[in-house]
């Protein structure tokens, strides 16, 4: 399962969504085509790729915001989705507290709201206006809102945008925690490679189509990945993983972390 190159041919009970060769055609061209992907319960699947590679399009097709123009999109019956979109199109004239944002798409008890906000570490902001939040607080609020739905599948479109580097680390840790806590599957979109890989079970590199997939280790050493992101990115990532996955390398001592950080990425 670690290095599966293709999605399961038949859905088993743990399969939440399955895309079979989906494509989206807009404005006379294919935004994405031939995408196969599967997300199972408890699995974190990450879509990475350069700008315009169709990551968001793929995610929107998976959640049903877009209908595929080719292929077939299967969702488990009764699947409950929690979605963190890339941005909210909210006007400044809409007053919205963090607490009210939590119940935007469904009624939830007050205690559950508080608990979700505590889980993401922004419980004191329950009465704050959403527009007044910092980038990191805002992403945490969106995460809390999505997980409050007790979803089977969380779809997170660039959940660390506008967040500084330590904040990113914390957020990816949080995402993993949420997975462990509610046992959902997670489809994660990112264009920053370093941190996300450490928190992922399966990586799918997109560039209009799937250029490679597998475990983070398998993908990093894949030539297609290197073509997409360059050798420097791949090397930095390799070092990063050594540094942040304790117990991963038993045979050789971990390289000096500081040196890795300042390497020519």
């Amino acid at each position: 399962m670690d290095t599966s190159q293709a999605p399961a041919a038949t859905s088993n009970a743990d399969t939440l969504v399955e895309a079979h060769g989906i494509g989206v055609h807009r404005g006379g061209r294919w935004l994405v085509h031939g995408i196969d992907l599967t997300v199972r319960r408890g699995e974190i699947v990450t879509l990475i790729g350069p700008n315009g590679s169709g990551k968001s399009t793929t995610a929107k097709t998976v959640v049903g915001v877009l209908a595929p123009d080719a292929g077939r999109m299967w969702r488990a019956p009764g699947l409950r989705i929690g979605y963190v979109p890339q941005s909210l199109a909210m006007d400044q004239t809409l007053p919205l507290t963090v607490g009210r944002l939590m119940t935007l798409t469904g009624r939830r008890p007050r205690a559950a709201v508080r608990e979700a906000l505590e889980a993401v570490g922004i419980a004191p902001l329950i009465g704050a206006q959403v527009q007044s939040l910092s980038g990191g607080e805002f992403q945490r609020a969106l995460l809390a809102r999505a997980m409050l739905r007790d979803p089977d599948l969380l779809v997170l479109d660039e959940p660390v945008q506008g967040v500084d580097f330590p904040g990113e680390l914390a957020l990816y840790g949080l995402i993993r925690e949420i997975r462990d806590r509610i046992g959902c599957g997670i489809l994660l979109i990112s264009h920053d490679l370093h941190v996300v890989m450490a928190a992922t079970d399966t990586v799918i590199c997109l560039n209009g189509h799937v250029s490679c997939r597998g475990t983070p280790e398998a993908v990093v050493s894949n030539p297609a990945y290197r073509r997409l992101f360059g050798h420097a990115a791949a090397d930095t990532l390799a070092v990063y993983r050594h540094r942040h996955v304790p117990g991963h390398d038993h045979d050789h001592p971990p390289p000096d972390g500081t040196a890795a950080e300042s390497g020519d990425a």
Partner: protein
Amino acid sequence: MLDDFFTRALVAGMGLALATGPLGCFVVWRRMAYFGATMAHSALLGVALAVALEMEPMVGVFVVAALVSVVLLLLERVGAVSTDTLLGILAHAALALGLVAVAALSWLRVDLMGFLFGDILAVSVGDIAVIYGGGALVLGVLAWLWRPLLAATVSADLARAEGLHPERARIVFMLLMAVVIAIAMKIVGILLITSLLIIPAATARRFAQGPEGMAVGAAVAGVVAVGLGLSGSLAWDTPSGPSIVVAAFALFLLALVPGAWRRRRAPAAEGETP
């Protein structure tokens, strides 16, 4: 009590304001002010058609306003020009068609000024019944649609991904606007209808912490504007519809004052809430 024309006007205007306040909040949040104006501009065409077909003018206004929103949705899908431009085209095309139609039906007596600026002092008990019936319908549907509509206003993608139906909510919302425009025409007239949607909502924004509070505040602001405007119009013998709008505008300006003052103070610390 309803024997007095001024009381009837007050009751009618306040009933209308109760409905336009909450609905107007969505107009403001969804940046649809110009869309409301476009629908309102089409009302004259609706009146002309209704008169020609010997129907109730309100029905004609509703039908044409609803048609305009359908045409807008279709033209948006064609995507040749931006929505903004489309609204400009539709608003003035509909108004011009209405003026042409009214002129062509010269054998009919249409009180053009009455439709353009309203005639709230002439409302009958029957009109009041229609306003309250329509207003109750609008508020009821709005309450029923509140969650999907609000979610779609924050993010249509989010609403769709989580199983609400933003398109359906949007279409029903447009129909509600058509209803409000139809019942508001007699009160403030075609040219000023959107003001009752937008100005009270914008006024309430200054004080609201949440969307529900803003909806209630907008209804209150609208009711107060109707009371002040009609009283002013009685005292100084000014036209009643425009007086209501002037009063609403004055309230809006007044509401800016505490907001500006509050902004100048240091923002309150986000303490641990118990």
